[in-house]
């Protein structure tokens, strides 16, 4: 187990370095350079040259990368030249919103997907199973922004039950916070359940064919125990894997959903930075999101190892 953690940690370092390089390279794809963006059209060549020198933009790219990485390792991700806020401040203000959204969404996805998967696996091939499987397939073709609009239209425009946009921090007013969160989280959750359902269903159908299920039946165990303990427990590892795979899509979905529902999360920060050409914030957010994504995947891997007794006892 320790060996497993150490090996995964060792792999994490080169990936994070590569991520930082790629982020830096993407940022340098900018036609012209940052000095033009900051100073605007009226800048004189002298002003630009002075700013470029101040920012170190006249140095070779690898030297700039090393300097940038050096600052980052000291916790300095840069500062918005529009608002003066540092990247870290901006991100840490908005992270809780995005996390709340993603966790609620995944919970909704699991709450819909897992029971349906169990029911479908138990009655595989039945009309119910085919209906749910077909619905899930259809849902996979509905982009997040489509279900967002549909939900806004239904619940905010027609029924006027829930607010379409806005946000109150959970600490200020939990009820209002959740009212604002329902539609965004539901939107994302609706995109999550089909994937969860499909993978878990086929996994459980496979598990139900195993010898150990035949033995569990031969032992005279109750059908519910066979289904929920003997068949579902081995599949719970799959559930962890799916949740891990979903993180990337959840982050992408959060960007869209936060923009539509005006939630002040990381996604909205990112899109806002693009609209206002706040490139320092953009670069910092991209790096932090990617690093966070890599680390979350690492945690999922660890969780997997902890849950699977075969890895836990070093039989990997």
């Amino acid at each position, binding site marked *: 187990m320790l060996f497993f953690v150490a090996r995964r940690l060792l792999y994490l370092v080169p990936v994070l370095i590569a991520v930082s390089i790629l982020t830096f390279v993407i940022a340098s794809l900018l036609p012209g350079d940052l000095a033009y963006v900051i100073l605007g059209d009226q800048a004189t060549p002298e002003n630009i040259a002075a700013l470029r020198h101040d920012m170190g933009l006249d140095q070779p790219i690898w030297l700039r990368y090393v300097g940038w990485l050096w600052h980052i390792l000291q916790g300095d991700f840069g500062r918005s030249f529009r608002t003066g806020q540092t990247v870290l401040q901006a991100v840490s203000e908005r992270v809780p919103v995005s996390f709340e959204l993603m966790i609620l969404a995944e919970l909704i996805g699991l709450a819909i997907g897992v029971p349906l998967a169990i029911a479908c696996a138990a009655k595989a091939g039945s009309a119910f199973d085919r209906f749910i499987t077909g619905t899930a397939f259809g849902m996979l073709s509905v982009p997040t922004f489509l279900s967002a609009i549909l939900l806004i239209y239904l619940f905010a425009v027609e029924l006027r039950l829930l607010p379409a946009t806005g946000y109150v921090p959970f600490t200020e007013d939990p009820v209002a916070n959740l009212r604002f969160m329902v539609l965004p989280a539901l939107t994302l959750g609706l995109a999550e359940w089909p994937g969860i359902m499909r993978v878990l269903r086929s996994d459980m159908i496979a598990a139900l064919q*195993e*010898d*150990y299920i*035949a*033995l*569990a*039946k*031969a*032992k*005279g*165990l*109750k059908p519910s*125990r066979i289904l929920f*303990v*003997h068949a579902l*427990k*081995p599949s719970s*590892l799959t559930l962890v894997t799916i949740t891990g795979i979903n993180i990337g899509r959840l982050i992408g979905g959060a960007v869209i959903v936060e923009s539509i529902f005006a939630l002040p999360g990381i996604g909205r920060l990112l899109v806002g930075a693009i609209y206002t050409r706040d490139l320092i914030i953009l670069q910092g957010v991209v790096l932090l999101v990617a690093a966070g994504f890599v680390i979350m995947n690492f945690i999922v891997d660890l969780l997997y190892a902890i849950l*699977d*007794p*075969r890895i836990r*006892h070093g*039989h990997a």
Partner: protein
Amino acid sequence: MSGVLLSVEDAVVDLPTPRGNLRAVDHVDLAVDAGKTLGIVGESGCGKTMLSRTILQLLPKKAKLSGRVMFDGQDLLKLSPEKLRKLRGRSLAVVFQDPMTSLNPVLTIGTQLIETIQEHLELGLAQARQRSIELLAAVGIPAPEQRLAQYPHQLSGGMRQRVAIAVALSCEPQLLIADEPTTALDVTIQAQILDLLAREQQRRHMAMIIITHDLGVVAGRTDEVAVMYAGRVVERAPTPLLFKQMRMPYTEALLAALPKLDAAPHTPLPAISGRPPDQTRPLKGCSFSPRCRYAAGRCNTEKPSLRAEAPQHFYACFHPIAAGVDA
């Protein structure tokens, strides 16, 4: 206690397959007396596993079954699922072929033992735990208390099969079905497991069915042997009688296929030539005729029925091996 514990009467199992109907079990009659041991012998695909699943009522959903399976005075086919469930694991236990796949990989050995005990016997957790430890000790597992918290993958194959046997024995069943219990194990372990089964069977006075492809396994350990071929029982006799004067050429071929310890090194093993028939395309005559060296005449056109020679010796063959000729 004596008398018939289990009887299978005219059992037929049909399986729909993409290539057509497959008759996996074809009019089989069997009986096991309380406390006795029956061996069922046959090649892969002869229907012996389907027969064991018939007794356990664990056939695939699509399978069609007719006939009767009487266990302890009740027809298992007519039992409600709930009554059947109370019987399985309690009075009717099973050990499967491969302990790698028949134990749940993500549950501890303790859980898999205790859940069976608590399902059928009214014991508290502590008592069930204590019973589990005793069972593990009885099947020859060292340090049984520590094993309870372990997972199947932490044990060797032989140890796992011992655990599976402990699970099967946990509620003192009247009948234990051992379906190829040693096929997946190392040769060196096989005899130990078989001896363990025989010992526990004696000690607990339970009836046992050993299913195997190996005549050597049933030789000293069973009271009666049924040889199966293509879904049918083709010869049935008390074990000593069968080995003394086997009648069915197929039984002879099975015996000839056994490796012999006294044979010269590098002697090629005489295998049974040919393959078992395609059971979705039943033959008109005797199913074994294409591979049988005695086959002639009506063997190819008519199916021999199972008939009795002596009161206890049955076989289905037109050209039985002559009495007195040593196989």
